[in-house]
Protein backbone atom coordinates (compact mmCIF):
# COMPACT_ATOMS: atom_id res chain seq x y z
CA UNK A 1 0.00 0.00 0.00
CA UNK A 2 1.09 3.54 -0.72
CA UNK A 3 3.15 5.52 1.77
CA UNK A 4 1.37 8.65 0.60
CA UNK A 5 -1.49 9.60 2.92
CA UNK A 6 -3.53 10.55 -0.11
CA UNK A 7 -3.51 7.00 -1.38
CA UNK A 8 -3.29 5.13 1.91
CA UNK A 9 -5.96 2.51 2.50
CA UNK A 10 -6.44 0.29 5.54
CA UNK A 11 -7.79 -3.24 5.74
CA UNK A 12 -10.56 -4.36 8.10
CA UNK A 13 -8.10 -5.72 10.66
CA UNK A 14 -5.93 -2.60 10.49
CA UNK A 15 -8.99 -0.43 11.17
CA UNK A 16 -10.12 -2.69 14.02
CA UNK A 17 -6.63 -2.54 15.56
CA UNK A 18 -6.56 1.26 15.22
CA UNK A 19 -9.98 1.58 16.87
CA UNK A 20 -9.25 -1.20 19.40
CA UNK A 21 -12.51 -3.02 18.63
CA UNK A 22 -13.19 -6.50 17.31
CA UNK A 23 -13.69 -6.75 13.52
CA UNK A 24 -17.12 -8.30 14.16
CA UNK A 25 -18.17 -5.26 16.20
CA UNK A 26 -17.06 -2.99 13.39
CA UNK A 27 -18.96 -5.09 10.82
CA UNK A 28 -22.16 -5.05 12.89
CA UNK A 29 -21.92 -1.30 13.33
CA UNK A 30 -21.53 -0.80 9.58
CA UNK A 31 -24.32 -3.31 8.89
CA UNK A 32 -26.75 -1.30 10.97
CA UNK A 33 -25.55 2.02 9.60
CA UNK A 34 -24.49 2.96 6.08
CA UNK A 35 -23.83 -0.65 5.12
CA UNK A 36 -20.54 -2.34 4.30
CA UNK A 37 -18.58 -0.82 1.41
CA UNK A 38 -18.20 -2.85 -1.77
CA UNK A 39 -14.46 -2.99 -1.24
CA UNK A 40 -13.39 -3.52 2.34
CA UNK A 41 -10.73 -0.87 2.65
CA UNK A 42 -10.87 2.38 4.51
CA UNK A 43 -9.01 5.68 4.58
CA UNK A 44 -8.04 7.92 7.45
CA UNK A 45 -11.30 9.90 7.26
CA UNK A 46 -13.35 6.70 7.46
CA UNK A 47 -11.50 5.72 10.65
CA UNK A 48 -12.11 9.11 12.24
CA UNK A 49 -15.80 8.89 11.30
CA UNK A 50 -16.12 5.37 12.72
CA UNK A 51 -14.47 6.42 15.99
CA UNK A 52 -17.19 9.02 16.49
CA UNK A 53 -20.12 6.99 15.14
CA UNK A 54 -19.33 3.97 17.31
CA UNK A 55 -19.20 6.12 20.44
CA UNK A 56 -15.58 5.20 21.10
CA UNK A 57 -13.68 6.98 23.86
CA UNK A 58 -10.13 6.54 24.99
CA UNK A 59 -10.16 6.53 28.77
CA UNK A 60 -6.38 6.03 28.93
CA UNK A 61 -4.74 8.27 26.30
CA UNK A 62 -0.98 7.97 25.89
CA UNK A 63 -0.37 11.20 27.80
CA UNK A 64 -2.71 10.15 30.62
CA UNK A 65 -2.01 11.66 34.05
CA UNK A 66 -3.06 9.85 37.18
CA UNK A 67 -5.18 11.72 39.68
CA UNK A 68 -4.77 8.99 42.29
CA UNK A 69 -1.39 8.27 43.88
CA UNK A 70 -0.77 4.86 45.45
CA UNK A 71 2.38 2.86 46.18
CA UNK A 72 0.74 -0.32 44.81
CA UNK A 73 0.56 0.05 40.98
CA UNK A 74 -2.38 -2.33 40.58
CA UNK A 75 -4.36 -0.66 43.37
CA UNK A 76 -3.50 2.71 41.87
CA UNK A 77 -5.02 1.60 38.56
CA UNK A 78 -8.18 0.37 40.26
CA UNK A 79 -8.58 3.54 42.31
CA UNK A 80 -7.85 5.68 39.26
CA UNK A 81 -10.50 3.87 37.19
CA UNK A 82 -13.01 4.33 40.04
CA UNK A 83 -12.19 8.02 40.02
CA UNK A 84 -12.62 8.21 36.26
CA UNK A 85 -15.94 6.37 36.36
CA UNK A 86 -17.22 8.92 38.86
CA UNK A 87 -15.71 11.82 36.95
CA UNK A 88 -16.90 10.72 33.52
CA UNK A 89 -20.24 9.71 34.95
CA UNK A 90 -21.34 6.33 33.75
CA UNK A 91 -24.93 7.39 34.33
CA UNK A 92 -25.47 6.93 30.62
CA UNK A 93 -24.51 3.52 29.19
CA UNK A 94 -21.07 3.47 27.66
CA UNK A 95 -19.12 0.83 25.78
CA UNK A 96 -17.23 -1.60 28.03
CA UNK A 97 -14.14 -1.36 25.85
CA UNK A 98 -14.05 2.44 26.25
CA UNK A 99 -13.03 1.97 29.88
CA UNK A 100 -10.04 -0.12 28.78
CA UNK A 101 -9.03 1.68 25.60
CA UNK A 102 -5.47 2.94 25.70
CA UNK A 103 -4.08 0.38 28.16
CA UNK A 104 -2.60 -2.99 27.32
CA UNK A 105 -0.89 -6.03 28.78
CA UNK A 106 -0.97 -6.57 32.53
CA UNK A 107 -2.76 -3.27 33.20
CA UNK A 108 -5.62 -4.28 30.94
CA UNK A 109 -5.95 -7.62 32.75
CA UNK A 110 -6.14 -5.85 36.13
CA UNK A 111 -8.75 -3.37 34.92
CA UNK A 112 -10.80 -6.11 33.29
CA UNK A 113 -10.78 -8.10 36.54
CA UNK A 114 -11.89 -4.98 38.39
CA UNK A 115 -14.75 -4.31 35.96
CA UNK A 116 -15.89 -7.92 36.28
CA UNK A 117 -15.82 -7.47 40.08
CA UNK A 118 -17.96 -4.32 39.77
CA UNK A 119 -20.45 -6.18 37.55
CA UNK A 120 -20.67 -9.17 39.92
CA UNK A 121 -21.18 -6.78 42.83
CA UNK A 122 -23.96 -5.00 40.88
CA UNK A 123 -22.13 -1.68 41.21
CA UNK A 124 -22.18 -1.56 37.43
CA UNK A 125 -24.88 -3.05 35.24
CA UNK A 126 -24.46 -4.23 31.68
CA UNK A 127 -26.60 -4.47 28.60
CA UNK A 128 -25.78 -5.94 25.24
CA UNK A 129 -25.80 -3.97 22.08
CA UNK A 130 -25.25 -5.63 18.72
CA UNK A 131 -21.76 -4.16 18.41
CA UNK A 132 -20.72 -3.91 22.05
CA UNK A 133 -21.40 -4.54 25.70
CA UNK A 134 -22.45 -1.37 27.49
CA UNK A 135 -21.92 -0.52 31.14
CA UNK A 136 -23.78 1.81 33.43
CA UNK A 137 -23.22 2.89 37.01
CA UNK A 138 -25.96 2.16 39.52
CA UNK A 139 -26.69 5.56 41.03
CA UNK A 140 -27.06 4.26 44.59
CA UNK A 141 -23.59 2.67 44.39
CA UNK A 142 -21.65 5.88 43.79
CA UNK A 143 -20.47 5.96 47.40
CA UNK A 144 -18.84 2.53 47.09
CA UNK A 145 -16.80 3.76 44.12
CA UNK A 146 -15.98 7.00 45.88
CA UNK A 147 -14.62 5.02 48.86
CA UNK A 148 -12.48 2.92 46.51
CA UNK A 149 -11.19 5.97 44.63
CA UNK A 150 -10.23 7.68 47.90
CA UNK A 151 -8.80 4.48 49.35
CA UNK A 152 -11.11 4.76 52.35
CA UNK A 153 -12.83 1.37 52.18
CA UNK A 154 -12.68 -1.59 49.83
CA UNK A 155 -15.49 -4.13 49.27
CA UNK A 156 -14.73 -7.69 50.39
CA UNK A 157 -12.80 -9.64 47.79
CA UNK A 158 -11.46 -6.64 45.88
CA UNK A 159 -8.02 -6.78 47.48
CA UNK A 160 -7.35 -10.14 45.81
CA UNK A 161 -6.98 -8.33 42.47
CA UNK A 162 -4.00 -6.21 43.53
CA UNK A 163 -2.47 -8.75 45.85
CA UNK A 164 -2.25 -11.43 43.12
Amino acid at each position, binding site marked *: *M*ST*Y*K*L*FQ*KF*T*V*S*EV*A*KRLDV*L*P*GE*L*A*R*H*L*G*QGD*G*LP*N*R*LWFDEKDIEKLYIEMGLRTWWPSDTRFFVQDDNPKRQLIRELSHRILKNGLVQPQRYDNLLRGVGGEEKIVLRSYLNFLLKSSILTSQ*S*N*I*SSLELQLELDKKQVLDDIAKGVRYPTGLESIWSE
Partner: protein
Amino acid sequence: MKGNRQVRSAVARGLEETHRWRINQEESFERKERELEQRSIDLQKRLELLQQELETVRNSYDQAQQERSTLGVQEITRKRQLLFSGLQSENALLQERTAEYNRIEDTQNNNLQNMLSIPEIAKKVDEYEAFLEKEEALSQLPESYRKAILAHHDIVRQDLDPIFDAMNSPLPRSELSLTAITLPIFTESVPGDKVKDFVMILPVRFERYTHWTDGGNSLEDLLLFRVNGLIASALKKLGMPKTVIMEEDFEGYVLLDISIVSELSGDLKLALQEEVRRMNKQASELQVAQLLVEPVFLGSDLIEYDEEEE
Protein backbone atom coordinates in the same frame (compact mmCIF):
# COMPACT_ATOMS: atom_id res chain seq x y z
CA MET B 1 -75.81 -130.81 -17.48
CA LYS B 2 -72.68 -130.01 -19.46
CA GLY B 3 -74.58 -127.84 -21.84
CA ASN B 4 -76.39 -126.19 -18.99
CA ARG B 5 -73.27 -125.01 -17.30
CA GLN B 6 -72.92 -121.94 -19.51
CA VAL B 7 -76.38 -120.94 -18.73
CA ARG B 8 -76.37 -118.54 -15.78
CA SER B 9 -79.16 -117.00 -14.13
CA ALA B 10 -79.54 -113.34 -14.44
CA VAL B 11 -79.25 -112.97 -10.70
CA ALA B 12 -75.99 -114.97 -10.55
CA ARG B 13 -74.60 -112.93 -13.42
CA GLY B 14 -75.72 -109.79 -11.71
CA LEU B 15 -74.06 -110.80 -8.47
CA GLU B 16 -70.88 -111.60 -10.30
CA GLU B 17 -70.98 -108.29 -12.12
CA THR B 18 -71.62 -106.57 -8.82
CA HIS B 19 -68.57 -108.26 -7.40
CA ARG B 20 -66.45 -107.11 -10.37
CA TRP B 21 -67.95 -103.65 -10.07
CA ARG B 22 -66.95 -103.64 -6.45
CA ILE B 23 -63.42 -104.70 -7.32
CA ASN B 24 -63.23 -102.07 -10.03
CA GLN B 25 -64.61 -99.45 -7.75
CA GLU B 26 -62.16 -100.43 -5.04
CA GLU B 27 -59.33 -100.17 -7.51
CA SER B 28 -60.67 -96.88 -8.76
CA PHE B 29 -61.00 -95.43 -5.27
CA GLU B 30 -57.66 -96.86 -4.34
CA ARG B 31 -56.10 -94.92 -7.25
CA LYS B 32 -58.12 -91.84 -6.37
CA GLU B 33 -57.11 -92.02 -2.72
CA ARG B 34 -53.46 -92.45 -3.70
CA GLU B 35 -53.76 -89.46 -5.99
CA LEU B 36 -55.43 -87.38 -3.29
CA GLU B 37 -52.89 -88.50 -0.75
CA GLN B 38 -50.12 -87.47 -3.13
CA ARG B 39 -51.81 -84.15 -3.80
CA SER B 40 -52.20 -83.69 -0.07
CA ILE B 41 -48.50 -84.42 0.43
CA ASP B 42 -47.63 -82.03 -2.37
CA LEU B 43 -49.89 -79.34 -0.99
CA GLN B 44 -48.50 -79.87 2.48
CA LYS B 45 -45.02 -79.40 1.07
CA ARG B 46 -46.12 -76.31 -0.83
CA LEU B 47 -47.87 -75.03 2.30
CA GLU B 48 -44.69 -75.50 4.27
CA LEU B 49 -42.75 -73.66 1.59
CA LEU B 50 -45.37 -70.90 1.52
CA GLN B 51 -45.29 -70.66 5.29
CA GLN B 52 -41.53 -70.36 5.15
CA GLU B 53 -41.91 -67.73 2.45
CA LEU B 54 -44.56 -65.94 4.53
CA GLU B 55 -42.25 -65.99 7.50
CA THR B 56 -39.46 -64.58 5.33
CA VAL B 57 -41.77 -61.87 3.99
CA ARG B 58 -42.91 -61.02 7.52
CA ASN B 59 -39.32 -60.79 8.70
CA SER B 60 -38.40 -58.66 5.71
CA TYR B 61 -41.40 -56.43 6.43
CA ASP B 62 -40.35 -56.01 10.06
CA GLN B 63 -36.78 -55.32 8.98
CA ALA B 64 -37.94 -52.77 6.38
CA GLN B 65 -40.11 -51.07 8.99
CA GLN B 66 -37.23 -51.01 11.43
CA GLU B 67 -34.84 -49.66 8.81
CA ARG B 68 -37.39 -47.06 7.78
CA SER B 69 -37.72 -45.92 11.38
CA THR B 70 -34.01 -45.10 11.39
CA LEU B 71 -34.19 -42.98 8.21
CA GLY B 72 -34.52 -39.79 10.24
CA VAL B 73 -31.33 -40.51 12.16
CA GLN B 74 -29.57 -41.66 8.99
CA GLU B 75 -30.65 -38.49 7.20
CA ILE B 76 -29.29 -36.36 10.05
CA THR B 77 -26.02 -38.33 10.04
CA ARG B 78 -25.66 -37.95 6.26
CA LYS B 79 -26.45 -34.25 6.43
CA ARG B 80 -23.97 -33.74 9.27
CA GLN B 81 -21.29 -35.59 7.31
CA LEU B 82 -22.09 -33.48 4.26
CA LEU B 83 -21.99 -30.27 6.24
CA PHE B 84 -18.74 -31.15 7.94
CA SER B 85 -17.01 -32.27 4.76
CA GLY B 86 -18.46 -29.16 3.11
CA LEU B 87 -16.89 -26.96 5.78
CA GLN B 88 -13.53 -28.60 5.17
CA SER B 89 -13.65 -28.41 1.38
CA GLU B 90 -15.10 -24.88 1.30
CA ASN B 91 -12.48 -23.69 3.78
CA ALA B 92 -9.80 -25.15 1.52
CA LEU B 93 -11.43 -23.31 -1.39
CA LEU B 94 -11.41 -20.02 0.53
CA GLN B 95 -7.72 -20.44 1.32
CA GLU B 96 -6.96 -21.31 -2.29
CA ARG B 97 -8.89 -18.31 -3.62
CA THR B 98 -7.28 -16.03 -1.02
CA ALA B 99 -3.97 -16.55 -2.81
CA GLU B 100 -5.63 -15.60 -6.11
CA TYR B 101 -7.37 -12.58 -4.55
CA ASN B 102 -4.12 -11.34 -2.99
CA ARG B 103 -2.33 -11.80 -6.31
CA ILE B 104 -4.90 -9.62 -8.12
CA GLU B 105 -4.85 -7.00 -5.37
CA ASP B 106 -1.04 -6.93 -5.37
CA THR B 107 -1.03 -6.38 -9.13
CA GLN B 108 -3.20 -3.29 -8.72
CA ASN B 109 -1.06 -2.02 -5.83
CA ASN B 110 2.13 -2.57 -7.80
CA ASN B 111 0.69 -0.65 -10.76
CA LEU B 112 -0.17 2.20 -8.42
CA GLN B 113 3.30 2.15 -6.87
CA ASN B 114 4.87 2.18 -10.32
CA MET B 115 2.84 5.25 -11.24
CA LEU B 116 3.77 6.96 -7.98
CA SER B 117 7.44 6.25 -8.52
CA ILE B 118 7.46 8.40 -11.67
CA PRO B 119 9.27 11.60 -10.50
CA GLU B 120 6.83 14.06 -12.12
CA ILE B 121 3.85 12.33 -10.52
CA ALA B 122 5.59 11.94 -7.14
CA LYS B 123 6.32 15.65 -7.19
CA LYS B 124 2.67 16.49 -7.84
CA VAL B 125 1.51 14.13 -5.09
CA ASP B 126 3.96 15.72 -2.62
CA GLU B 127 2.74 19.14 -3.64
CA TYR B 128 -0.93 18.20 -3.34
CA GLU B 129 -0.45 16.52 0.07
CA ALA B 130 1.37 19.61 1.34
CA PHE B 131 -1.49 21.73 0.04
CA LEU B 132 -4.10 19.59 1.83
CA GLU B 133 -2.22 19.91 5.12
CA LYS B 134 -2.24 23.69 4.82
CA GLU B 135 -5.70 23.99 3.29
CA GLU B 136 -7.34 25.26 6.47
CA ALA B 137 -4.75 28.02 6.84
CA LEU B 138 -5.64 29.36 3.38
CA SER B 139 -8.70 31.12 4.79
CA GLN B 140 -6.29 33.55 6.48
CA LEU B 141 -4.86 34.66 3.12
CA PRO B 142 -6.16 37.52 0.96
CA GLU B 143 -8.97 36.30 -1.31
CA SER B 144 -7.18 36.88 -4.65
CA TYR B 145 -4.09 35.03 -3.44
CA ARG B 146 -6.23 32.22 -1.99
CA LYS B 147 -8.18 31.85 -5.24
CA ALA B 148 -4.96 31.62 -7.25
CA ILE B 149 -3.62 28.87 -4.98
CA LEU B 150 -6.91 26.95 -5.10
CA ALA B 151 -7.02 27.20 -8.90
CA HIS B 152 -3.47 25.93 -9.16
CA HIS B 153 -4.21 22.95 -6.93
CA ASP B 154 -7.37 22.16 -8.83
CA ILE B 155 -5.14 21.63 -11.84
CA VAL B 156 -2.68 19.55 -9.80
CA ARG B 157 -5.61 17.47 -8.52
CA GLN B 158 -6.84 16.94 -12.07
CA ASP B 159 -3.36 15.82 -13.08
CA LEU B 160 -3.61 13.17 -10.38
CA ASP B 161 -6.90 11.80 -11.72
CA PRO B 162 -5.22 8.82 -13.43
CA ILE B 163 -3.70 7.81 -10.09
CA PHE B 164 -7.03 8.05 -8.29
CA ASP B 165 -8.69 6.17 -11.13
CA ALA B 166 -6.06 3.44 -10.94
CA MET B 167 -6.58 3.14 -7.21
CA ASN B 168 -10.37 3.21 -7.26
CA SER B 169 -10.98 1.12 -10.35
CA PRO B 170 -12.67 -2.20 -9.60
CA LEU B 171 -10.33 -5.16 -9.33
CA PRO B 172 -10.55 -7.53 -12.30
CA ARG B 173 -12.26 -10.86 -11.75
CA SER B 174 -10.19 -13.99 -11.54
CA GLU B 175 -10.36 -16.38 -14.46
CA LEU B 176 -11.11 -19.25 -12.10
CA SER B 177 -14.56 -20.80 -12.35
CA LEU B 178 -17.46 -19.32 -10.41
CA THR B 179 -18.10 -21.50 -7.34
CA ALA B 180 -20.74 -21.35 -4.62
CA ILE B 181 -20.01 -21.78 -0.95
CA THR B 182 -22.69 -22.75 1.53
CA LEU B 183 -23.92 -20.65 4.40
CA PRO B 184 -25.91 -23.10 6.56
CA ILE B 185 -28.46 -21.28 8.72
CA PHE B 186 -30.03 -23.36 11.47
CA THR B 187 -33.28 -22.02 12.83
CA GLU B 188 -35.05 -23.01 16.01
CA SER B 189 -38.77 -22.35 15.87
CA VAL B 190 -41.41 -22.14 18.57
CA PRO B 191 -45.15 -22.90 18.08
CA GLY B 192 -46.61 -20.58 15.47
CA ASP B 193 -43.55 -21.12 13.26
CA LYS B 194 -41.78 -18.15 14.80
CA VAL B 195 -38.01 -18.34 14.83
CA LYS B 196 -36.61 -18.25 18.37
CA ASP B 197 -32.90 -18.40 17.68
CA PHE B 198 -30.72 -18.98 14.70
CA VAL B 199 -27.21 -20.16 14.16
CA MET B 200 -24.85 -19.85 11.20
CA ILE B 201 -21.76 -21.94 10.58
CA LEU B 202 -19.10 -20.51 8.32
CA PRO B 203 -16.30 -22.31 6.49
CA VAL B 204 -13.96 -20.08 8.45
CA ARG B 205 -11.49 -21.53 10.95
CA PHE B 206 -12.30 -20.48 14.51
CA GLU B 207 -8.69 -19.39 14.94
CA ARG B 208 -9.39 -16.60 12.45
CA TYR B 209 -11.79 -15.21 15.09
CA THR B 210 -9.44 -15.65 18.03
CA HIS B 211 -6.27 -14.63 16.16
CA TRP B 212 -7.71 -11.97 13.89
CA THR B 213 -4.77 -9.66 14.52
CA ASP B 214 -2.46 -12.05 12.64
CA GLY B 215 -2.87 -11.26 8.98
CA GLY B 216 -6.49 -10.32 8.66
CA ASN B 217 -7.14 -9.80 4.97
CA SER B 218 -7.87 -13.34 3.88
CA LEU B 219 -11.18 -14.31 2.31
CA GLU B 220 -11.97 -16.16 5.56
CA ASP B 221 -11.58 -12.91 7.53
CA LEU B 222 -13.56 -10.91 4.99
CA LEU B 223 -16.38 -13.47 4.81
CA LEU B 224 -16.70 -13.49 8.60
CA PHE B 225 -16.80 -9.70 8.51
CA ARG B 226 -19.43 -9.62 5.76
CA VAL B 227 -21.68 -12.17 7.50
CA ASN B 228 -21.55 -10.20 10.76
CA GLY B 229 -22.58 -7.12 8.81
CA LEU B 230 -25.44 -8.83 7.00
CA ILE B 231 -26.89 -10.26 10.22
CA ALA B 232 -26.85 -6.81 11.82
CA SER B 233 -28.44 -5.27 8.74
CA ALA B 234 -31.20 -7.90 8.53
CA LEU B 235 -32.04 -7.62 12.22
CA LYS B 236 -32.23 -3.85 12.05
CA LYS B 237 -34.62 -4.06 9.10
CA LEU B 238 -36.73 -6.52 11.11
CA GLY B 239 -36.98 -4.04 13.98
CA MET B 240 -34.51 -5.77 16.30
CA PRO B 241 -31.37 -3.61 16.36
CA LYS B 242 -30.23 -4.96 19.73
CA THR B 243 -29.27 -8.54 20.23
CA VAL B 244 -26.31 -10.65 21.21
CA ILE B 245 -24.23 -12.45 18.60
CA MET B 246 -21.95 -15.05 20.15
CA GLU B 247 -19.01 -16.58 18.33
CA GLU B 248 -18.44 -20.23 19.21
CA ASP B 249 -16.10 -22.99 18.12
CA PHE B 250 -17.94 -25.69 16.12
CA GLU B 251 -15.54 -28.51 15.25
CA GLY B 252 -12.84 -25.90 14.59
CA TYR B 253 -15.07 -23.57 12.54
CA VAL B 254 -16.86 -20.34 13.41
CA LEU B 255 -20.43 -20.67 14.62
CA LEU B 256 -22.46 -17.50 15.11
CA ASP B 257 -25.28 -17.89 17.63
CA ILE B 258 -27.95 -15.20 17.43
CA SER B 259 -30.73 -14.83 19.97
CA ILE B 260 -34.03 -13.33 18.93
CA VAL B 261 -34.80 -11.08 21.89
CA SER B 262 -37.89 -9.28 20.63
CA GLU B 263 -40.73 -9.58 18.13
CA LEU B 264 -39.55 -9.45 14.52
CA SER B 265 -41.48 -7.25 12.12
CA GLY B 266 -40.95 -9.50 9.10
CA ASP B 267 -39.77 -12.83 7.78
CA LEU B 268 -36.28 -13.63 9.01
CA LYS B 269 -35.49 -16.08 6.20
CA LEU B 270 -36.49 -13.63 3.50
CA ALA B 271 -34.51 -10.86 5.16
CA LEU B 272 -31.36 -13.01 5.39
CA GLN B 273 -31.77 -14.21 1.80
CA GLU B 274 -32.06 -10.61 0.65
CA GLU B 275 -28.92 -9.61 2.56
CA VAL B 276 -26.93 -12.53 1.13
CA ARG B 277 -28.14 -11.62 -2.36
CA ARG B 278 -26.96 -8.05 -1.79
CA MET B 279 -23.60 -9.30 -0.49
CA ASN B 280 -23.09 -11.50 -3.55
CA LYS B 281 -23.86 -8.55 -5.78
CA GLN B 282 -21.71 -5.96 -4.00
CA ALA B 283 -18.80 -7.63 -2.19
CA SER B 284 -15.74 -6.90 -4.28
CA GLU B 285 -13.61 -9.70 -2.82
CA LEU B 286 -16.26 -12.34 -3.62
CA GLN B 287 -16.59 -11.13 -7.18
CA VAL B 288 -12.84 -10.97 -7.73
CA ALA B 289 -12.37 -14.47 -6.31
CA GLN B 290 -15.36 -15.75 -8.32
CA LEU B 291 -17.29 -16.90 -5.25
CA LEU B 292 -20.98 -16.87 -4.44
CA VAL B 293 -22.54 -17.49 -1.04
CA GLU B 294 -25.63 -19.69 -0.98
CA PRO B 295 -27.76 -19.68 2.17
CA VAL B 296 -29.29 -23.04 3.14
CA PHE B 297 -31.92 -23.15 5.89
CA LEU B 298 -31.93 -26.20 8.15
CA GLY B 299 -33.46 -27.33 11.43
CA SER B 300 -31.47 -26.79 14.60
CA ASP B 301 -31.64 -30.57 15.38
CA LEU B 302 -28.73 -31.01 12.95
CA ILE B 303 -26.32 -29.35 15.33
CA GLU B 304 -27.83 -30.52 18.61
CA TYR B 305 -25.94 -33.65 19.60
CA ASP B 306 -27.34 -36.02 22.23
CA GLU B 307 -24.80 -37.58 24.55
CA GLU B 308 -25.84 -41.05 23.28
CA GLU B 309 -25.24 -40.04 19.67
CA GLU B 310 -21.77 -38.83 20.53
